[in-house]
Each structure stands twice: as C-alpha cells, then as structure tokens.
C-alpha cells in the first residue's frame, strides 16, 4: 500500500533515492541542493537504506567518485546546483561517454556572477550537449516518480539522467506526496545487472584511446541510445500508470486539443499556468498548455504533434542563450523547421535568477502573445 507524506521537492528526491537503494553516493553541499544530501544522510543513518556515502572536496570529485563506482556496476547518485554542476562539466562527458547509468538531481539555480541562489535553468541547459538525459519536473510527486523512471531508463539504455527541479519554488516547498510501497518499486525497478563492468578478474580498461572510425561509431551508438530512450520512457510511463495510476508523459498537454493558442513552457511555470489557462478559457480565449518534460532526448514527434494543431505558440523560457534567445524556444523552432502547418512562434524569456513568475505575469504574457502582430519570429524579455 502506498503511503502519503508531506515532502519538499528535495525530500522527495532523497526518499526516491533511498527506495531505489542507491549503493554509492558522492556528496558535496551547495545551496539549494544541500537538503537532498542531508536527507539522504538521515535516511542512511536511520538504516532506511545502506549506501556508501563518500564525502568529497568538490562537485568534480563527487562525480568522479560515482563514475568510478558506477564502472563496477552499482547504482549511484549525487545532487548539485549551478556552479557545482558547471564544475562537474568535464566529468558529465565522462559519465555519458562511459555509458554509465548515473542519476543526478540538479536543483536549478542561476549562475554567478552576480551571486544568486534562486532558480533559473541556465545551469542545467548549459550541460545540454554532454549526452545526459534531462527531465524537468513541476511537483514533488513528479520529482519522486521521475527519480525511479530515471534509474529504470538509464539502466536500460546506459545513459546518465539529470532530474531537474526549480530552486525553492519546488526544492523547498512541501506538498503531499504519495510514496509507493517497496513491492511496487521492485516491480518497476529491478536490480541492475550491468552488461559490462570493472572486474578485477577480467581486467580491461575504460575510456581508452579510440581511433577515428571507432570514436564516431561509439558516438553514433550514444545518439541511437538516446532515440531508444524515448521509447523506453514511454513504455516505463505506461507501466508506472499500471502500478500507481500516475503518468507524466514526455510532453504534457493541458486543454491543448482544440486550442488556437498554445502556451509552451517547462517545470513549475507549467503548474502556475494551469489556472491562468482555465481563466482565459472561461473568458473565451482558446488557449492550451504544453509542458516539455523530457528535454533530452528531445521529443520531436510530440512537439510536432501538438504544435501543428494550433495557430500560434507562445513559448516561455526561464533561461537565455546569450546572443540568441530562450533555449526551449530554439529547440522547438528547430523541430518545426519545414514542417507543414507550423504555427507562428513567439519567444519570451523571464523569471531569471528567481524573478517571480506569477499567474498575472503569465496572463499578461499570453495576452501580449495573442495580440502582437507578427513579422517572422519574435523574442522579448518579460
């Protein structure tokens, strides 16, 4: 029987990691992630699970530690934010190139300088091309469920996963969360049997020199595995629905079917947007919501499917690629290039460094987006 608890987003991560019985956890504190590893230590101290927790001197070492551990075929975890994730950058490539099913929770925090401890997505999106899967969550329940999904899919396709949650808005806000029982988890997430591992009885080395024909070959395989991941995510989501009644999708829609306008966003901005959609619908505007939950692998098909049905897409990014515009917007536009019935696209960036994204702000953005006369695409700061 599942039980219910009031958990913050960060506590939800910790509980899921404990139930997934991660074996080796490298930890190094950074706000606003720290309460994840604190809670993990509590759970370990209470014997909820018995991981080997390695205290290290930097995020780089935290990742290095679990890469080493993951090569031996055990389940691993670490959590970080912002500069910490940036410091891991080199090793994020190692984890993906080494095809290690590591799971990392990144609590979105704006990059310094100027120092900020508040949320935006530039930290995780800067790691877009490292070969990791990325899941953006909007609630503590989604966070909990996504950690299980991340382990399951990572271990199936041998690609590491980054589960992303917004600083404070999600990481430190308590919500009722349904926690599945262990039997459910065992069904969903069987013990990991690696197809290769570091084994002293059969010595071989990992990460060795690759000549050009082989280098591209393994990169090709990594990219193929990303495509396969989309299928596995979908399958796993179905199984999760069977087991718990919940599904999260790859792209989530809300009142999108008959919409003329679509508000497209990610993470907690999506949940803030729902009542606004309801309000505007009541007022007669045919508006719907699309949330991009899985950012890598990028869900081309799902994006095409929803967006070709509407007249205009209003994309709201909590991130910016300097010299270009919002990153989700870029990706959505590239997915629609040359596609018949592509909608008009408006790109807005706002909420950086924790700037509040309120229902009013979303409403203003939508109104603006529906009224603006369009010449090609448009980018604006909110």
């Amino acid at each position, binding site marked *: 029987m599942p039980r219910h608890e009031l958990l913050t987003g960060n506590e939800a991560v910790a509980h899921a990691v404990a139930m997934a019985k991660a074996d080796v956890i490298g930890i190094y504190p950074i706000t606003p992630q720290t309460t994840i590893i604190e809670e993990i230590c509590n759970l370990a101290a209470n014997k909820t699970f018995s991981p080997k927790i390695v205290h290290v001197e930097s995020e780089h070492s935290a990742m290095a530690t679990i890469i080493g551990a993951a090569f031996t075929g055990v389940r691993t975890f670490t959590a970080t934010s912002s500069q910490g994730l940036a410091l891991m950058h080199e090793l994020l490539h190692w984890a993906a190139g080494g095809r290690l099913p590591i799971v990392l929770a990144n609590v979105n925090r704006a990059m310094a300088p100027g120092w900020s401890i508040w949320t935006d997505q530039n930290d995780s999106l800067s790691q877009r091309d490292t070969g990791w899967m990325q899941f953006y969550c909007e609630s503590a329940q989604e966070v909990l469920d996504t950690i299980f999904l991340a382990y399951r899919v990572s271990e199936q396709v041998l690609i590491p996963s980054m589960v992303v949650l917004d600083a404070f808005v999600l990481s430190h806000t308590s919500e009722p969360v349904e926690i599945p029982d262990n039997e459910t988890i065992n069904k969903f997430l069987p013990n990991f049997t690696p197809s290769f591992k570091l084994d002293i009885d059969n010595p*071989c*080395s990992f*990460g060795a020199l*690759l000549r050009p024909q*082989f280098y591209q*070959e*393994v990169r090709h395989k990594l990219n*193929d595995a990303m495509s396969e991941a989309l299928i596995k995510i979908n399958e796993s989501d179905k199984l999760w629905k069977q087991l718990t009644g919940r599904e999260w999708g790859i792209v989530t829609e809300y009142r999108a079917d008959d919409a003329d306008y679509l508000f497209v966003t990610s993470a907690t901005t999506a949940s803030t947007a729902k009542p606004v959609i309801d309000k505007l619908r009541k007022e007669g505007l045919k508006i719907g919501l699309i949330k991009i939950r899985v950012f890598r692998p990028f869900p081309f098909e799902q994006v095409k499917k929803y967006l070709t049905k509407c007249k205009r897409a209003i994309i709201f990014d909590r991130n910016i690629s300097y010299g270009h515009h919002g990153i989700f917007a870029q990706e959505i536009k590239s997915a629609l290039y040359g596609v018949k019935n592509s909608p008009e696209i408006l790109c807005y960036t706002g909420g950086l460094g924790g700037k509040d994204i309120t229902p009013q702000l979303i409403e203003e953005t939508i109104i603006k987006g529906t009224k603006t006369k369009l010449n090609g695409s448009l980018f604006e700061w909110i």
Partner: protein
Amino acid sequence: MKNLKTPLQQSGINVPISGQSLKTTAENKTGIWRNVEPFYLDRISPCAQVCLSGHDIPVIIELVYENKFEEALKILRLANPLPASTGRVCPAPCESSCLRKSLGGSVSIKQIERFLGDFAIENRIFCLSKGPHRGRIAIIGAGPAGISAAYFLAIKGYFVTVFEEKKKAGGLLRYGIPSFRLPKRILDRELEIVFKQLPVEFIYEKRITKDYEKLLRQFDSVIITCGKSISQIPDIPGAGEKMSGLTFLEQINNGDSQPLSGSVAVIGGGSTAFDCARSALRLGCDSTIYYRRSKKEMPAFEHDITEGLEEGIQIVENVIPIQIDKNGDYKITFAKTTSKDRKSAVKIIPNSEFAVTTDHILFATGEKQEHLFNKVQKETGGIDVSQTYRTSDPKLFAAGDVTVMAPGTVAGAILQGRLTATSVHNYLNKTTEPHPAKIPHLRGAKDDGTTIEKINLNYFQELRRSAQKATDIKSRLKNFDEISSTLNENSVAWEVKRCFSCGTCVYCSNCMNYCPDNAISFDSSKKRFSVNLDYCKGCLICVKECPRHCMGSKYAAA
C-alpha cells in the same frame, strides 16, 4: 521506428558501446612517452655524513622504531663498541646537521645511542668474536682508539694484548672526563660486556717506552694508541707542573681529591678547562676561566660551555697570563689581548696588564704527545701516519690523539681505531679489504647529499624534541654524580618517530601508491621497489612524493 544501426553494425561488426579495451591495458606501453625516468637511490643522511664514528644513523633509528633494540645495537657496534660512553660525551655533530631541526628540534640521536648503550649493559649483551683465531697484535694504550682497535681486531679473530700504563682501561674516558659526565661504573660495565668474551688481554701498569721494538719482534703487528698525556704548561715565571689541570682531573677520577676552598683560576678554553672548573665547583671553590681568545673562539664543545655557565662558572675573555707570584695566595698578572679567529696568533695590547688574586691555579692550556717512539715520531708532535694509519715501519701502526691526525674526540678516536684494525688485517693477509670505508653503509647509500630542500616537508609535522632530564643545579654541585639521565623507552620511541629517515627508504610505498601508471612494484623478498620502464611515462610524481629523497631522475635514453 527507424532502424537503429550504425554503419559498422550494418556490416556485422559490433564494437563496445564505449571506449573499452578488450584485454588489459598492459598492451599499451605508455613507457614510450617518457623522456625522463625515475630511479631509486638511498643517500647518506646528513647526520651520518658528519658522524664522528661513522654510524648508519637512519638504519639504526628505523630498527629502534621497530622496537628491535638488539638489532639496532648490532648495527651500532659495526662502527662503535662504546655507545654508552659516546652517547654521553660525544659533541654530536650529527644533531647539529639533523634536518629535523627546523620542525621541533633535531632528533636526539646521541640520546638514542646512549639508550642502546645502556640497553646493552643492562641486558649484558656481550660482544663475540667470529674467529678463526690467528695472529697476535699488541696495542699500546687503552684509550678509545686502543679499545676500538682491540675490539675490531678481536671480532675478526685476532689475539690482542693491550699494554696500559694506568691501573685501568679507558684513557681519557676514565682519567680525563669527570664522572658527572661519564660515571666510571658505566665505563666499567661497558668495557666488561665488550671484552669479557673476546680474545683480548689487558696488561695494566705496564708503560711501554723503548721496549716497543721488542714488541715488534714478539707480535705480528703493533698499534700505538697512547694519546696525548703531557699537559702543556706555558713557560712563564711562577708556572709549574703541579698546576696541571689534567693531573687535577686524574686525581679526582682516582678518588683522591681534597675539598677546596676559596677561588680557582683555570687558564684555557677547551674541554679540560671546563671539566677542571666544574670539578672545582663541586669541591667547594668559585671557578673562573681565563681565556686568551674570545668566548666564541673556545675549542671547548658546546655542551661544556652551556653546562659550565649554567653551573656558575665565570669566564674572562681575551686575557693571557704573563707572571705568577705566590705570597700566601697567588697573584696572577694578565695582559689583555685581541684575537681574530682560532688560527691566528693573539695580539697583546701594550700596557694592559692587571692582576688577579686567587687561591688555586690550574693550567688547561692543551695536551701534547710524549716523545717515546723515536723512529716514527719527530722531536715534538704526533706520530706520522698515512691515510691508512701506517707508520714508516710496515709492522707498526698508530691511531688516535697520539698521531698527527689526532681526532680530539672520543668517537673520532674510535673511528681511527676501527680503520686501523682493517689496515692491520689487510697488511697481515696481504688483502685489500676495501680500505676503510668511513661509514659501513648497509644499503649501499651514495654520498649524494640530501638537504632540507630535498625533503618533502608536506609529509612531516612539527614534533617537539623530548627534553632530557637533568639534576637541578644546586644538587649537582654537591657531588660528582651524573647530572643527566638516559631517555626512557617512551621518549626514545618519540625521538625515532621524529626522524625523517633522510635519504633512506623506509618502504612507505608512496612512490608505488602515487604512480598513475601502476609502473612501480615492490619485491618483498629483496625489500626493493622497482620501476617498470615499459609503463613509466616519466611524470616523476613518485620522485616528488618520496618524502625523504630516496629517488632521483635522469633524462631517458632515446
């Protein structure tokens, strides 16, 4: 869903999903990247380089560290049979050059030696001869040089006869150095464990003079080790033999001293001067030392000066006596001098005379060799010897203070005794046993210098030197009892722990643990590390991380 197949997969070739070797990486000989290569080299430590008797100090310390006292003693005895004595009286240059100095004070090497010497005495660990017995050697004089030569010849299997003019053996250890620095009981017991089981015969109260030539006929070889026995009393009005400081010390050491009262003036600046002044204090006198040069030019050892001053000796520098008058007490007339250094002559300042009255006078203005051995000795000065301690007569050898190479220290005399024994052995066997390597370096260490810059100080923290217990000044002056005590086992353990083992590999395995290419291995039967050059890529992390400079590097051959 589209066909997920890479070009190679389509042509039936399946490579792993990430860069993985199919076998071990032994395939990759990373050694070909190397342009420099590391090597192992034990180096003679700074302490051992200056040790007067030539100890392999870090090896001894390592054995003590492992609590193997008897083995440590064995190694000590390879160079010195009298550690309880040298451990008390040696000026210990080893400690002055110890690299630990800057991190809590030098290692108490001398005290470790003393501890091992006392350990041998208390546990009665006798010295044994290897045999086979052959050859008869005569030694003239049972001071440190003679004792050392007798010991090293006897353990090699020679029969040795030592002729000594005094009633007992020890030379200046017995008749010069006072018992508050070296108790006679310690000397007696040390000599007992050294010689009890060795084929050495001591003939006491036998003064050899002209008859040494007879000995040359009776014995296969003769070694002269009779030191410097004559006090040099300056030729000034009123001075005389009965004012000899050396004779004064000998009387006290013989047990026939009288209480003294009033004041004593000791003329001189060496060990003898301080021992005289300090002994006089104990007999009830005030002591003042008058020296012709400045205090920093005194030939006395540092321990003489510091302990002497502690006990209340006065020192008057840059004065020279020119006349002594006796009228009840003594009146000494001094002239003031200027001096530059130990070597150049002092200059008398004209018209600077002043007088001092005193109850007693002792001259400690140096000792010289007696002129006894015409054929090999000039009218004045020591016996002429070669670097191998031979005289012009092939059967006759000489060592210690009696020679022109007079070491002036107990440990130095012991070294010369040892080297002379090897020379005698070589002469008798017509062998060339590597002459007298000064230090019997057990692991073949090279004299390649190790300095504080070469020690990786990151591995060492500051650890304070243990204090040696000494009797308080007031009680010291009541008698001639020894003033300092031997370190206890805990303090010795602390001291050996403080040693860096400069230049001596202690198998800490840092080199092996840090090698990123797994190129270093340890052969436990040979107790050696070695570098597999097939895989060493020349990063030299091992060299850098050796805490104690036992590794080096060189450009690799192309």
